[in-house]
């Protein structure tokens, strides 16, 4: 679509109409919570993983250790749950510390 537009000197110019996003996400989809999951990895040290959980999520040491042990014994642990943008931020931080982490929709 094109729009004719008057400019100061009285001549006309043609400009592109602003692009409109046609893809929409319904409210239900936006409300779906996401979870941050850390997966087991035989290389990362247990003390290192605990420190990263404390640092990234601000968890007290005991809670961070509980999650670390869950990762170690069960293969994965859900560290956090909430909006997607925040989950992406946390996963980026965890990848920055070289932990195996993913974000998944809560089903």
């Amino acid at each position, binding site marked *: 679509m094109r729009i004719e537009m008057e400019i100061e000197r009285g001549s006309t110019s043609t400009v592109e109409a602003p692009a409109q996003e046609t893809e929409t996400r319904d409210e239900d989809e936006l409300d779906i919570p996401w979870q941050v999951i850390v997966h087991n990895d035989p*290389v990362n040290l247990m003390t290192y993983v605990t420190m990263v959980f404390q640092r990234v999520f601000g968890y007290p040491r005991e809670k961070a250790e509980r999650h670390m042990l869950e990762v170690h014994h069960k293969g994965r642990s859900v560290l956090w749950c909430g909006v997607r943008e925040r989950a*992406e931020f946390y996963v980026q931080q965890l990848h920055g510390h*070289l932990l*195996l982490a*993913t974000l998944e929709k809560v089903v």
Partner: protein
Amino acid sequence: MEISRKGEALEISDLDPFLAELLRQIPGSTNFDGESEAEARLFTQPSNEKEICAEWKSYVEPELRRLFRSATETVADDLAQLNGNEKSFRSRTLAIPFEHADAWLNALNQARLVITAKYKFSDEELSDHDRSPIGSRRDLGLFQVNFYGFIQEFILREMQGD
């Protein structure tokens, strides 16, 4: 070899030439060129959703690459203290400024992950800390993973004030 906290630095003293050489190899060991599995381990997929992975590759991965490179460069600069007299059998001392501790943890982790991916060490091999002696390049790789882990443990202990 002795490790201790000296003021605002972590000091590794009485480093014999072999261990000094292993430390010097940290930056080189983070290099994953030609090792697709190692690269895949450093830059893992964040999700099963294609859209998220595509955005990640464009926007997040370059940031991670910069972060990892910066950590490795910091460690390489610190390791310059060990340069010179490489052929001497004299013991050396390395001082790691405490403010570089995060960079060291990161670079050591990169090195451990890349070496592990390169030699495809199994969980059993990684947990066998009594394995000896070093008879091949692969054995040396496993020793490096354990030695770098030992250094990481020490840095972590000092960071947490244990």
